[in-house]
Every structure is written in structure tokens, then in C-alpha cells.
């Protein structure tokens, strides 16, 4: 399979070109600015968490490569209606998948359409691009303000 199919799939290219939930949320209680010093990517995540820990709204702003932008965009569409605890579980699975420690084809998971990022595991220099939004999300849930990928 070529890299075009593995990494730059149509869905990823589409989310890069037309990112979903690309906006700030006013009066938000939760937000975090994520930064990858290696490439300069910046992703800011905004979260509105309803009673019962349900993610009522989630959005992002920032600049970065196609992989980091598409990952943030897809993440926001995936998370709405899920609880913060579910989000943390999916982060864990997502992280394992991009590191090559979880194979969605043979192992149980809750990743749904996010499995589209499994091709990233073949491109070690791009793993942080795919996971920046997720690290920033966890930081936003925990209200820590900012996070840096090391």
C-alpha cells in the first residue's frame, strides 16, 4: 500500500482542508494550548463539560500539519456526547494504536472511525502530530492550561 493510502487518506485530507469545530467556545470552563516544539504545531482545545461529565461541546483552533489538524478535527466530531472518562479511555487506545501497540484489526477497541490514523505507526516522526490534539484534550479535561510534547 502506498503512503498516500496509508497516511494521507481522503478523510484525513478532507478534515485538513475543512476542519470541523474549528472555533473557540466562549465562556468555556476547560481549555488548553498544546504545542509541539519539534515542528511548531499549535493546537488549542476548548471543552464544555455538562453535569454528569458529558462532553457537550468540543472545538479547536491553531495551526499545524495535515495530520495534526485532521486528528484534532476528527477528535472533536468523535467526542461529542461522550463522557470525560470515555475520552480518556479512547486517548489511551489511540495512543497505543499510533505507537503500534494496539492493532484495531485484531484487538478490541472503542476507536470507531479514528482507526483511520493507524497508518501513522509507519511514520515515527509523525506520531506526535497525530497525538498532539489528544494530549491537549487530556490537559483541557484536567484544566492544566498548557502542555508541551516532549
Amino acid at each position, binding site marked *: 500500500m502506498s503512503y498516500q493510502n496509508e*497516511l*494521507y487518506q481522503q478523510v484525513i*485530507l478532507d478534515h485538513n482542508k475543512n476542519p470541523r469545530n474549528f472555533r473557540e467556545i466562549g465562556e468555556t470552563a476547560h481549555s488548553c494550548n498544546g504545542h509541539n516544539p*519539534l*515542528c*511548531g*504545531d*499549535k493546537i488549542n482545545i476548548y471543552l464544555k463539560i455538562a453535569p454528569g461529565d458529558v462532553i457537550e461541546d468540543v472545538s479547536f483552533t491553531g495551526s*499545524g500539519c*495535515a495530520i495534526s489538524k485532521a486528528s484534532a478535527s476528527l477528535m472533536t466530531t468523535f467526542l461529542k456526547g461522550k463522557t470525560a472518562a470515555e475520552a480518556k479511555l479512547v486517548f489511551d487506545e489511540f495512543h497505543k494504536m499510533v505507537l503500534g501497540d494496539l492493532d484495531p484489526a485484531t484487538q478490541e477497541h472503542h476507536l470507531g472511525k479514528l482507526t483511520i490514523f493507524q497508518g501513522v505507526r509507519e511514520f515515527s516522526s509523525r506520531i506526535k502530530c497525530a497525538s498532539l490534539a489528544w494530549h491537549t484534550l487530556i490537559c483541557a479535561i484536567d484544566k492544566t492550561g498548557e502542555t508541551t510534547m516532549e
Partner: protein
Amino acid sequence: MAHFDVEKIRADFPMLAALEGGKPLVYLDNAATTHKPWAVIDRIRDFDSKEYATVRRGSYRLGERATDMFEQARKKVQKFINASDHREIIFTSGATQSINLAAYSFGKKFIGAGDEIVVTQMEHHANFVPWQLLCQEKGAVLRVAPITDSGELIIEEFAKLLGPKTKLVAVTMCSNVLGTVNPVKEICKMAHDAGAKVLVDGAQSTPHMAIDVRGIDCDFYAFSGHKMYGPSGTGVLYGKYELLDVLPPYVSGGDMINAVSLEKTTFSKPPGRFEAGTPAISQVIGLGAAVDYLTGIGMDNIAAYEHELLEYGTKILSKVPGLHIIGTAPHKGAILSFTMDAAHPHDIVTIIDQEGVCARGGHHCAQPLMTRYGVPATARASLAFYNTKREIDCLAKALQKVLEVFA
């Protein structure tokens, strides 16, 4: 210019015959590190297998011969950059350590509260952060000279930053991102008139043009071995002898002392004072072989051929739709930084890598410069005298792939 037989030169570099993902390797990241010719590889292997011993210690013949070869390498470097005295050549682990050494030792002796250090907007972090840290530590002030949109130092603005408080100017001879070659001789004259010393970062100039530190009249000149076809883990700090002679040591320990008692240590004269511990013996001897190799080809021949490559590359890349070259100074080295409307630099380099083309995407350790241009990153093709026009065509073809993927 005499005919430059690049295919003959390529045969000297075994790595250039490598395949990358089944495709011929097109290596365009020479500003990061360069490949080694057989002359360097063989010299290190010969030394390690037939001549190796520690230097400057042993009283046995093997050690004396190794010391002699090590010191020969110093003389080769001295001649290569036209220093007046071999004692002005300090071996380090690379340009980064060279600059840190200068910042530490010069700073300790000469920088105090309220003093000023001038750098430029185009410095690599290696020639920026050590000065920033030094200023923070001493309560000194770091002044940053601006550049034009084309990437040239604005000399009039630079001149305004010089004054009685200026103690040091740290400037790159060639920008690792823009390729701009700075008028370092003129800068030294201006700085000296203001009573300041000058450190020139030669990491990107030494491998690509003839260097004459006496002609430039800089006080320090720093460069790396691994960017000039030599081994990684080697570097040089040149300093004028009378300046080095009054500076305190940087790293201390063995091999840099005159006498040690329980109360007090006195230190060796330069360069020994600045070379504590066992040096990278084989690697320095390999660096000497790299100098011989480059001298054999001729730095002026190398500069002329690389300029031809730069002109060709500029022409070819300018034809790629939506591509913007960053750094268009009239006097520049063979470095092509660019952005594309279609794709982020990180995506560009991933896609061209799949076509066998190694280039770098990122901030190139020059974040203040990225800020100056309002970009988070650039893609960069940096050329060497073993690159060819055909390889530039490969780059252009690979960039068409980027346009296809991000259509």
C-alpha cells in the same frame, strides 16, 4: 570555471549510492549533516586498527605517533581557515560546544551587568541561546539586529546597536535557513571600531567557501566537523591567541592543567586549557582527512559549483505553483528554504521522503527567524558539492506529488 566532475566526486561517497525505500537516495539535508568520503572513513579505520593510542600523555612511541597525527590535524585546520598559529585551534565536540565555550569563558572574564551583546535575527539557536543565557546570568542586555524581507542583515540598524556598552557581536557567516552570506569582514570592522569582539558562527560557511579568519579579522570562529564531510563529535573554536590566552577554562579536569596541588591549580596555555579530558582522537584525525579532501578539490571550485546548483534549484523551484522561497539575498549559499500554499512543511517532507528525497521540515533551530517571517516552519533543501541538477529535478518531481496529494 574548470569542468567539475560531480560523478567522479560522488564515487568518493559510499552513502550516495544507497537506496531509500527502493529508490536512489537524494540527500538534500547537508546543512544538518553531510556524508563522508572514503578518504575520511578509511583514515579513521586505519588509525583505529593500526595507530590508535591516547594523545598528549604517553611516553611510549605509539602514543607519541598518535599525538603527532592529532596535532597534524590541528595544523591542517589552521591552514584551512588561514589562522596564524596552530595554538589558536581548539578542538570541541561541534559548533554548539565551540560557541558555549566562547560564551562561558569570554562571558566570565569580560561580561558584566549592563554590558551588551549583539546578535542577529537569523541566528541558529546555537548562536542565540548561549548569549541569551549569559545575558540573563550577568544582567547584560541582548540586542538583536533585524533583517530585510529578502533575508539580509540591515547594516544601518546593526550599526545603531553598537555602542560603548557593546562587548561582543555574535553573527553567523551563512544562515542555515536563508542561506544569506553576511558581510562578516565589514561587521568585524564596525564592531572593533566600537570596541567589541566578534564571534562568527561558521557552521554553514566553512564547508562551502574558502575561509580566511585573518582576512575576516574575527576574534572567534566556530564550526562543526560533521557538516564538512568529517566525523560527528568534532568541532573547532578558533580564537585569536592573545584573547584565548587571557580566558579562563570552560570544562576542567585532566589534560588542561599546568600544576595541581591541594590548594590551587594552574592551567595550560591555549589550546590545552580548553581541551580537558581525552578528546575524540580518531574523529579529529578523520577531520584532518576531510580537510585534506576538501583542499584537494579546492574550496573555490566547490563554491562555484554549488552556486551553479543554487541558481538551477532556485529556477526550478520557482516554477512550482504556490511555492515561496524564503531567503532571496543576492549573496547566498546553496540553501533553499520554502513554504507551499498546498501543504505544511512537515507534510511536504513526509511525501518527498517517500520519493527518496531527504529534506528537512521544521523551524531549523531558528525560531526567532520563523517568527520574523510569520511561519511556524519551512521545508529546506540544502545542497552540497556532491549533489546534481538531476537530484534537483527529483526534488521538483517529488514536489509535484505533494501538489497531487493536496490537490
